[in-house]
């Protein structure tokens, strides 16, 4: 199976081409079928690849179908690599992707442009698989910008809506800013390592680090800049909330499960580089924690169901980066996987709610859907519990592991743990605020709307994801709670390079402390749920009351700390303004002006010349006479000088 590794991404590409060219002619039904089929095939192949990978002793398989760019000694093959890390990723991408495709068949059934939707979705999966399977930085960069393109296309899918088109453009440009950092890192890597392939770069990393540590830090920071762009961390997160303009399954696949995790995957993949630069790791951890808290705070007050989930995603990504920052690479990836399950489920659940209320997204116009949509409600509840960190669900396992690592890891810090724990509380609160507002209480939607449970094709994926959200955590059940933390061992070979570079982990952490922290995180989760219950079910008027008292704070959070407006004011508006000023004053006036000026100068010279010939010839006669005088004078002068 492994030699066919490089065909895994080709299936979705085939789906893209088929749907792209013939989709309209074949109608919606078949285009949906093709879309799902290609993803299923690549999922099955991924499973097969994982199986055969397990049998390989050194857990790594490389294949390079052809040479992409060869100039002098700059040699970049179009190569793929399968190792435990990329195996996990392709499984998540194709697995969750397949479920979302099935869900989309139902969700997009009424949309005339369904073929175009499925072709773009398949193209996205293709680029994501290329990104994840790449064996060198440049092929990863293809996937990197490719997924950016697809998110642009899919966010702006309903292009008739100006806000969607604007959001798409914003997403692509902010991603591009991140990609700039990534490409600069690639340049630095090539010129200092002589190659771009992961294996060789990581082999040489220690030698280069020995010579100039600063270089590795610079590379690390630039790579992380790319990651913040793609995974929506401070300061480049502004595009994700607006990305909710796209169809909900798109948000589920791209803006929750796969694309946004590309940054986390990249940092994990380059763990050796990051491990060699403690400064960079610290930056990653701090930004991760800060983003988690910052995003969670904004999620508290959002009224749009998808916006809440968007900020929740940013916050959870912050967790993953926190894990990577403290050296717990495996924990980060584990949370990535579990997050993919329950966040996708949350989005799809929100999707079926919106679908049922005929495209109503405002929480204040929902309520009491518990009875009308039991499956959606229960699966949504499971996911909410998981994200809130209630054992034994997946969310608890991965989040707790991160919190523990951030505390216990030699390069971790208790402050990071504290921020993480506070965020966990906030997460539990806003999730259950959403649950109670949407599903409990009396219905606030207009009577004309009759919410109904979404059809089978949408319900089944919800159930599947629900199951995954529950059992997903068990494969990484930590030893301390009697599990085999199998997931960590599975990824160990990938991160052993990095582990070796990190300061040794003293094993003497007392078990008691670990249990204590686990208890604290569970308590915090329940606290959040109870707090939400208290405010939104017990006494619904309290949030109203608080809103008036802390109006300032409320508005600050509601308007997202006015970050968008600040960016617009300090970057976009001055840029466009100065461009217009430069164009009008400088380009047209000065540069073009000088060119036209020279032309005018020639004309004016000619005009003055003409004016002197007045036609009265006496003037001419005199000038002629003086000419003769001068000529004669010269003759006389030379004559005198000679004879003199």
């Amino acid at each position, binding site marked *: 199976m492994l030699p066919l590794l490089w065909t895994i991404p080709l299936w979705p590409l085939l789906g893209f081409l088929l749907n792209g060219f013939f989709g309209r002619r074949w109608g919606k039904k078949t285009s949906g079928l093709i879309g799902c089929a290609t993803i299923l095939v690549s999922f099955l192949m991924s499973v097969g690849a994982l199986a055969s990978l397990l049998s390989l002793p050194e857990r790594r398989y490389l294949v390079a179908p052809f040479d992409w760019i060869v100039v002098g000694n700059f040699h970049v093959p179009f190569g793929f690599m399968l190792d435990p890390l990329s195996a996990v990723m392709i499984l998540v991408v194709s697995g969750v992707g397949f479920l979302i495709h099935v869900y989309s068949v139902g969700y997009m059934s009424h949309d005339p442009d369904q073929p175009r939707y499925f072709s773009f979705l398949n193209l996205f999966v293709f680029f994501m698989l290329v990104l994840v399977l790449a064996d060198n930085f440049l092929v990863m960069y293809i996937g990197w910008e490719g997924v950016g393109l697809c998110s642009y296309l899919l966010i702006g899918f309903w292009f008739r809506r100006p806000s969607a088109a604007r959001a798409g453009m914003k997403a692509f440009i902010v991603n591009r800013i991140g990609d700039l950092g990534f490409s600069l890192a690639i340049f630095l890597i090539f010129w200092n390592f002589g190659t771009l392939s992961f294996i060789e770069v990581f082999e040489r990393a220690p030698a280069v680090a020995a010579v100039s540590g600063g270089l590795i830090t610079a590379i690390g920071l630039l790579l992380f800049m790319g990651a913040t762009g793609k995974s929506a961390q401070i300061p480049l997160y502004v595009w994700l909330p607006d990305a909710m303009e796209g169809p909900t399954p798109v948000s589920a696949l791209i803006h929750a499960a796969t694309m946004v995790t590309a940054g986390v995957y990249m940092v994990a993949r380059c763990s050796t580089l990051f491990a060699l630069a403690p400064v960079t790791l610290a930056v990653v951890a701090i930004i991760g924690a800060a983003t988690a808290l910052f995003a969670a705070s904004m999620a508290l007050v959002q009224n749009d169901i998808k916006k809440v989930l968007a900020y929740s995603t940013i916050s959870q990504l912050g967790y993953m980066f926190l894990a990577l920052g403290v050296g717990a690479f495996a924990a980060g990836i584990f949370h990535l996987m579990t997050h993919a399950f329950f966040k996708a489920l949350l989005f799809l659940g929100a999707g079926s709610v919106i679908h049922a209320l005929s495209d109503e997204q405002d929480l204040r116009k929902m309520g009491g859907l518990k009875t009308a949509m039991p499956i959606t409600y229960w699966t949504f509840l499971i996911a909410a519990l998981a994200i809130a960190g209630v054992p034994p669900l997946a969310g608890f396992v991965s989040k707790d592991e991160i919190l523990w690592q951030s505390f216990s890891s030699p390069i971790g810090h208790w402050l990071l743990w504290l921020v993480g724990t506070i965020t966990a509380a906030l997460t539990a609160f806003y999730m259950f605020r959403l649950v109670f507002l949407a599903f409990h209480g009396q219905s606030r939607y207009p009577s004309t709307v009759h919410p109904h449970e979404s059809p089978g094709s949408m319900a089944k994926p919800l159930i599947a994801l629900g199951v995954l959200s529950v059992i997903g955590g068990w494969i990484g059940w930590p030893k301390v709670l009697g599990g085999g933390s199998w997931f960590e061992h599975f990824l160990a070979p990938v991160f052993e390079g990095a582990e070796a570079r990190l300061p040794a982990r003293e094993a003497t952490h007392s078990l008691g402390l670990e249990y204590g922290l686990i208890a604290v995180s569970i308590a915090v989760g329940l606290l959040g749920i109870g707090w939400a219950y208290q405010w939104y079910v017990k006494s619904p008027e309290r949030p109203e009351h608080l809103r008036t008292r802390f109006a300032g704070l409320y508005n600050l959070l509601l308007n997202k700390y006015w970050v968008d407006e600040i960016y617009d004011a300090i970057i976009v508006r001055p840029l466009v303004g100065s461009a217009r000023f430069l164009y009008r004053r400088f380009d047209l006036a000065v540069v073009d002006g000088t060119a036209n000026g020279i032309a005018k100068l020639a004309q004016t010279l000619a005009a003055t010349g003409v004016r002197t*010939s007045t*036609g009265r010839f006496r003037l001419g006669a005199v000038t002629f*006479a003086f000419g003769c005088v001068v000529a004669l004078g010269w003759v006389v002068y030379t004559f005198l000088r000679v004879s003199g």
Partner: protein
Amino acid sequence: MTLLPVPLGNYILLSGILFSLGVIGVLTARNAIIILMSVELMLNAANLLLVVFARVHGDIGGQVMVFFVLTVAAAEAAVGLAILVAVFRRKGSVDVDRLNMLKG
């Protein structure tokens, strides 16, 4: 070896004076007739010198030159005056400043 009545310099000086008067006449006069006559004056100044040097070098060529200058002067005067008549007929006056048809 015979002698000139006066040293050569005087002749040249005389011719020079006559020539300058001619030039001044051409440049300052506003009546076309005067200008034409000044030109004749300049020609005569040249004739004088020709004759003087013919005498000094004993070469008859000088005087032949004067003969030719004379014919040229005659031709020039004829044409000049003809133009003058035409201008007068057209402009009603021979004031030179009226002739500015060649204005740029």
